[in-house]
């Protein structure tokens, strides 16, 4: 079943993995959030610039990890740029549900993100795909908690 493999490593995922978006560190950030999967060794740093309308003006993701965690972080960077915190939180919860195989109510076009579905066939890899999203939620929560520059560390395990 090499199909299976291609299910997970879809072309679009390999594309993000080979050329991750959001590579450049931000000069002007107000959220820093670190994520970490001890059992994989995956490490992810996320920086957000939230503007005064609570929209995400810019994103930086730096992930040292497997193709799945890198691609998931890259897609996230691409997808959330320009969205409001409200929207971002909603979609993050939906992606988490989608990855865990729970019922999700995604109706909008999530573009590349849809390709993460293939990971569900590889249960041990789900937490790799989750890492960026959980790190994002944690960062936004912290931001909303104090409204100013915030940093946090989280894990999907």
């Amino acid at each position, binding site marked *: 079943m*090499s199909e299976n493999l291609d299910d997970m490593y879809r072309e679009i995922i390999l594309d993000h993995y080979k050329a991750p978006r959001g590579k450049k560190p931000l000069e002007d950030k107000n959220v820093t959030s670190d994520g970490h999967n001890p059992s994989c060794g995956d490490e992810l740093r996320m920086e957000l610039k939230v503007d005064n309308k609570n929209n995400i003006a810019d994103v930086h993701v730096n992930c040292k990890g497997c193709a*799945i965690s890198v691609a998931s972080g890259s897609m996230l960077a691409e997808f959330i740029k320009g969205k409001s915190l409200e929207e971002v939180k909603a979609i993050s919860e939906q992606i988490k549900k989608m990855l865990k195989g729970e019922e999700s109510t995604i109706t909008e076009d999530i573009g590349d993100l849809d390709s993460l579905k293939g990971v569900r066939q590889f249960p041990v890899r789900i937490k790799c795909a989750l890492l960026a999203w959980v790190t994002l939620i944690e960062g936004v929560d912290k931001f909303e908690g104090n409204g100013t520059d915030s940093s946090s560390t989280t894990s999907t395990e």
Partner: protein
Amino acid sequence: MNSKTTEKDIVIDIQKIKNDFPILKRQIRDNKLVYLDSGASTQKPIEVINAHTEYFNQINSNIHRGLHTLAEEATNAYEKTRTHIAKFIGGVKTCEVIFTSGTTESINMVAYTWGEANISEGDEIVLTDMEHHANLVPWVMLAKRKNAIIKRIPITDDGRLDLDDIDSIITEKTKLVAVTHMSNVLGTLNPIKQLAEIAHKNGALILADGAQSAPHMPVDVLDMDVDFFAFSAHKMLGPTGVGVLYGKENILEKMPPFNMGGEMISEVSFDRITWAELPHKFEAGTPNIAGVVTFDTALTYLENIGMENIHAYETKLTAYTIDKLLQIDGLKIQGPNNSINRGGAISFTDKNLHPHDISTFLDSKGIAIRAGHHCAQTLMKRMGTIATARASLYIYNDEADIDALYDALIAMRKYFGHE
């Protein structure tokens, strides 16, 4: 066991052996299974599987204290394995062989009993930078409870113990040296006999973690002069849930018991409890009888091939594997780059790919390896990596398996665009 084997003596009938392992006929994702994960757990030959069935069909009963025929047969079969192990590890006394549920429990047993009784504030416990968590976490936590000090023998960049400063590490303050006989990540074989001498000279005990050595080479605990030796049946063709703790009789005698319950007591009242004789003092409750009985067959299977033969064969195959892997651009062997004084646990990293991606890709070709930190996070840190991919060999592997690995790794680099 042959006393000395030169390369030309190696007589391994690899086709016969492969045939003895039913699972090796399995198809994985349209490919024949290539099993290179024996360091995690080995496959079982048909003899072992049959012995297990036979036990349940013919003998099954609780042991000891039972006066009926089944109980007596089960007891004899259980104790036969103990006698076998006593011989297998160099000819120790049967009362020095304690059955546990695995290496992990064996080591924890020493930490909870000998450790609790003998480690005090300021005492030093010496580990190495290449320990499996099973031989690290119990000691770090014991040291925490007791305000004792953990010291570490460092390793060189190619994954050997660095003994240059050993005299400042193992000193008169040392109470215990706990060291792996063979690293599950690097494959390195450590000079246990030499370390035992240094430990004893300083009045310390030494525990060797034999989880990765006992399956692959002749082991003589008396010659190495270790005080404790631990290993697991499931890593040497035997069942899961069975392990061994060897301990010197005079040390075991003085140790308090670990788990408490049936079989390990002599007399019980609410005021006074006396313990059973060795080895029963350390075997509370109903043990894994079927597992222990079956382990005997696994040992016989190994001995029929010969532990010297096994070691020689694996050394050759390790050399072949290292040689092949080094031909692949961007791949790095984590551990000794040659087959001298090392076993067939071969870790590698790819300069571009995470080990998890390597493992998932290889699986799509039917090749089972392990990827991750291998329960050795502190070693990962020392090697400057977060994880490795590990191929680990056993007697049912051959050059064709390694060729399949090589071909798949080449295909992988292409798949991920790293040609």
